[in-house]
C-alpha cells in the first residue's frame, strides 16, 4: 500500500529532523560517521516510525519487533534517533564521544535502552538477527526481526554464513535491508572489493530480492511491507542510497565515511540539509496520493 501524502510528508519531516540532529551531534562531537549515517536515515525512519512494532514507551516488550543495525558505526545517527524516541536524553547528545559518555561511536546496548544489539565489528549483525528470528520460532512469538546491513560489510564471510543459514532455516520473519551506498572507507565498493552482481549473490543464497531507491520513502516503505509478508523465501531489500546524502560536498564521496566540519562546511551542510528537506517534501506533496 502506498504511503498517503500526509504520512509521507510526516515521515519526510521525521527523516529530515533526524538528519539535522545527526549533523548537530557530529558537530557537538567534533567529528563522526556522517556518510553512512545519512544514507541510512530514511531506512531507520521507516522502521522506527512506521513498520516495526516498536513502542518507545515499552522498549523491553518481549513481543516487540527487533532491529539489528549491523553497520554499528552509525551511532551518531542512532543516538539522535533514540533521543527523538525519548530513550536518550537530548542533553546527552552533547556528550557524544566524550570521555565517560554513555554514547560513543558504536553504541552499547547495555547503555542505550531499546537498542537491540551492540554492533561495530562488521559482519556480525546478520547472525545476531537470525538468532533473534529463530528465538521467536522456538518461543512461539510473532515478532519480526529487521536487519540493516552496510554494503561494504558484505565483504565479510560471516554475512554470507548467516545468509545461507537464513534461507536454510526459512527465516522469513527476518527482513534484511542493505544500505547500498556504494562506498567504504578506502574507496568505492566496486574498486576496493567488487560486490556486483550483488543482487544475484543474494538470489543465489536463497533470497527474494527487491531493489529500490533507498531515498524514495514511498518505494522503500512498499518494499518493507512486501518483505513482511514473505512466506517462502526470506527477503533482502537492496536500498540504493547515496553516502552522505543531503550534504552537497559529502554526497556520494567515500571520503565522507567519517569527517569533521569547519565553520564554513557546517554552514553549507546546514543549508544543504534545509534545501534537501524542502526537495523531499515537495516530492512527497507531488507524488503522494
Amino acid at each position, binding site marked *: 500500500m502506498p504511503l498517503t501524502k500526509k504520512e509521507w510528508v510526516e515521515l519526510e519531516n521525521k527523516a529530515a529532523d533526524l538528519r539535522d540532529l545527526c549533523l548537530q551531534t557530529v558537530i557537538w562531537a567534533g567529528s563522526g560517521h556522517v556518510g553512512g549515517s545519512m544514507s541510512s536515515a530514511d531506512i531507520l525512519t521507516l522502521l522506527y516510525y512506521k513498520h516495526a512494532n516498536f513502542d518507545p514507551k515499552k522498549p523491553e516488550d518481549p513481543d516487540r519487533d527487533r532491529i539489528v543495525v549491523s553497520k554499528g558505526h552509525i551511532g551518531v545517527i542512532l543516538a539522535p534517533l533514540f533521543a527523538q524516541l525519548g530513550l536518550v536524553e537530548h542533553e546527552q547528545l552533547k556528550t557524544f564521544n566524550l570521555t565517560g559518555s554513555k554514547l560513543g561511536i558504536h553504541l552499547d546496548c547495555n547503555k542505550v535502552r531499546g537498542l537491540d544489539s551492540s554492533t561495530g565489528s562488521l559482519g556480525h549483525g546478520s547472525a545476531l538477527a537470525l*538468532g533473534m528470528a529463530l528465538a521467536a520460532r522456538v*518461543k512461539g512469538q510473532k515478532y519480526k526481526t529487521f536487519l540493516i546491513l552496510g554494503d561494504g560489510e558484505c565483504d565479510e564471510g*560471516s554475512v554470507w554464513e548467516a545468509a545461507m543459514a537464513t534461507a536454510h532455516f526459512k527465516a522469513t520473519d527476518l527482513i534484511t535491508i542493505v544500505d547500498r551506498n556504494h562506498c567504504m572507507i578506502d574507496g568505492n565498493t566496486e574498486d576496493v572489493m567488487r560486490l556486483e552482481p550483488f543482487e544475484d549473490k543474494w538470489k543465489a543464497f536463497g533470497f527474494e530480492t527487491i531493489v529500490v531507491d533507498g531515498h524514495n520513502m514511498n518505494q522503500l516503505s512498499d518494499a518493507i511491507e512486501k518483505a513482511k509478508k514473505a512466506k517462502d523465501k526470506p527477503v533482502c531489500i537492496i536500498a540504493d542510497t547515496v553516502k552522505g546524502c543531503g550534504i552537497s560536498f559529502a554526497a556520494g564521496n567515500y571520503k565522507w565515511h567519517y569527517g569533521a566540519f569547519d565553520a564554513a562546511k557546517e554552514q553549507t551542510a546546514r543549508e544543504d540539509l534545509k534545501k534537501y528537506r524542502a526537495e523531499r517534501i515537495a516530492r512527497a506533496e507531488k507524488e503522494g496520493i
Partner: protein
Amino acid sequence: MAGGLSFTAVESTKLATAEIYGKTLSALGDENPNVVALTADLAGSTKIGDFKEKHPDRFFNVGIAEQNMYGVAAGMAKCGLIPFASSFSVFASLRALDQVHTDICYQNVNVKIIGTHGGTSFGQAGSTHHAIEDFAVVRGLVNMTLICPADGIETALAVRAAANTPGPFYIRINRGFDNTVYSTSDYGFQVGKAVTMNEGNDVTIIACGSCVYQSMQAAKILENDYNISARVLNMHTIKPLDKEAVLKAVDETRRVVTAEDHTIIGGLGSAVAETIVESGKGCAFKRLGIPDKFSAIGLHEDLLAMHEIDAAGIVKNVLELMKADFEAEAVKKGLDITKLNFGTAEDWTDEV
C-alpha cells in the same frame, strides 16, 4: 543433585565425557523449554544427538560456520533462550573469537560455549585440532566464566551450573574418555571454588582437566616413595579463580606446582602466578604444561607424558621444586640472600 540427573562412577567410566555432556544437555532440555542446542556440523563428535532426537525444534545445525553459530547463539540469548553452542575447543576459542568477544561477552548474554576435544586430547589430529591456547584467550574475555572439569561427573555438574547461572560460560572438556576422579556427584561442586582432592602440607599441585587425575596419582607416588605430602587442588574454574585456595596453599605448603593441558602461557599457571605475586607471599613455584611450542602429534597419554603433565612428569617436577629455596624463607632464617644460590637448597624436610 537438583533436577534428577546424576552420574555414578560406573556410568562415568562407560561414557565418554562428551556423552555425559550430551545427556546432561538433553535432561536440561526436558526441564527448561528455553534451552537450545547449536552445533557447526559436529553434533556427532560433540555428542548432542540425544538433544536433537528429543528436542528437534530446539536443535540447530548451522553447518561448518562457527562464527555464525556464536552470533546466532548471542541473538537467541538476547531473546531469552539459553543456547548451548558446542564445537571443538580450538574453533570455539579461536575461529569464532570475534563473535565470542563482541556478540557474547560484550553484550553479556547467556550463551554457554562447550569446547570439546580440549588441550591435546585429540592429539593425533595435530595442532590444527589441539586447543592449547584457549584458556589464555578465553580467560582474557570480560564477563566470561571459564571451567575445565576434571571428569565426566564434574562435567555434568559444570554444565548444569552453567545453565542455572546467567552470563557467558566456556566449558572445556576432552575428547573420549577421562579417568574418573569422583565417585559421586555429591562433593559440593561450586563454580569458582577449588576442590581439595588430596590433603598435604609439603607442596600443592594445582591442576585442572586431565591433569587432576594425573596430579592425584603423582601425590600417591610422592607420598609412598618420597614421603612428600602433596596437596592436590582441582581448580576446575580458571576464571574466576579461587584465590583464597591458592593463597591458603602458599601459606600452608609454600611450594606450588600448576599442571594443565595447555601452553604454560596465560592459562591456569599464569592465573595462579598472578595471584601469588600480587599477594606478596614468598613461594617456590613451577608451571607445568606445554612449553611455548606447538605440540607433537600423538596419543593423548603420550603427549601428557611428553609435556611432563602425567603423574611421572609431575612427580619429577615436584621433586625438583622441593630442592628449591626461595627468598622469603632465606630472609626469615636470617641468611644473607646475596650469597645464596636460589634453586639449589637441599633441605626441605623441616618445613611446615
